[in-house]
């Protein structure tokens, strides 16, 4: 016999009203400013809790606490995964189609810290694939990404670097990262970053090559090359005129890269 309130398991709340359980377990006095959810539907504070019920009580006006977010993440990912993710520092080189989507995925995963790098602003042509909204047009991608990440998880630590990255500043920018995600646009920049990580550091590099158009989704793969390079993409489809980058395959590649980061952190790679 068990029920859950805010992902906290409790036998004693069975038979209590949501209002009583919120006070007893979460020390919260539920009123109109609260969102109440029971088993995936909105609920009233006087509804009684039964065996197996999952209840959430969230105050609309208060910022969700770090403890609450971590409880939700531990419940979804397991405490072991959450602990490893929350200790990780990941660098993201470029916040375009790949980087903006990867940053969002890693925020949802509860990564501890991200160093996000881009010198560019959000433009209208970005909206077809990059994780920005109309309200971000004209703003620095670093600042827009930070804002979006903090709307998902306010407790992910963000360091913004508004610089054009090259081998002169890679060492300083990425010194804290154990994993660097290559999310550049130009092939020369990709090669420069990967060469630096593999040649001069012990870090892992998750890079991308080839994801344009609407070719078969299944042609995008993750390949391990050597011990520390992971290469995602179809290796073939270059972004060029009439063969541009489109949201679905870019998101697939970004998803591969983000999942690759998780797998490296969890020792699966």
């Amino acid at each position: 016999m068990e029920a859950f309130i805010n992902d906290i398991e409790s036998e004693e709340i069975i038979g209590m009203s949501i209002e009583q359980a919120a006070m007893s377990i979460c020390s919260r006095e539920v009123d109109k400013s609260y969102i109440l959810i029971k088993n995936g539907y909105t609920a009233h504070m006087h509804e009684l809790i039964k065996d197996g019920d999952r209840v959430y009580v969230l105050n609309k006006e208060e910022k969700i606490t770090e403890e609450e977010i971590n409880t939700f993440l531990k419940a979804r990912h397991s405490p072991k995964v959450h602990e490893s993710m929350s200790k990780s520092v990941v660098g993201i080189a470029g916040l375009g189609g790949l980087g903006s989507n990867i940053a969002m995925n890693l925020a949802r995963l509860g990564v501890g810290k991200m160093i996000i790098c881009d010198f560019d602003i959000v433009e209208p042509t970005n909206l077809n694939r990059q994780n920005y909204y109309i309200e971000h047009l004209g703003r620095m991608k670093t600042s827009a990404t930070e804002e979006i990440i903090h709307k998902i998880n306010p407790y992910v630590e963000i360091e913004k670097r508004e610089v054009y990255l090259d081998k002169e500043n890679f060492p300083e920018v990425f010194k804290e990262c154990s994993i660097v995600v290559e999310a550049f646009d130009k092939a020369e920049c990709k090669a420069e970053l990967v060469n630096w990580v593999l040649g001069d550091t012990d870090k892992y590099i998750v890079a991308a090559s080839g994801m344009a158009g609407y070719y078969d989704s299944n042609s995008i793969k993750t390949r391990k090359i050597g011990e520390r390079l992971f290469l995602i993409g179809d290796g073939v489809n270059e972004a060029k005129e009439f063969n541009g980058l489109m949201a679905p395959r870019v998101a697939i590649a970004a998803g591969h890269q983000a999942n690759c980061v998780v797998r490296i952190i969890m020792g699966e790679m």
Partner: protein
Amino acid sequence: MKVNGKIYDFNEITVKDLLKELKLEEGKVVVEVDMKILNKDTFATYMLHGKEEVEIVAFIGGG
């Protein structure tokens, strides 16, 4: 020599010339010879004798 798992009949060739033969651009590649990353600055002088295992990753633009 092997390049990305395929056997090629090259010997006594610099990395720079190998890349030219394979129609690859120096600035867009990562080259590993016998599991060691090669610095781009050495492509013109590093001589491959024919028994090496070479891995070349050629990057495609877009992201």
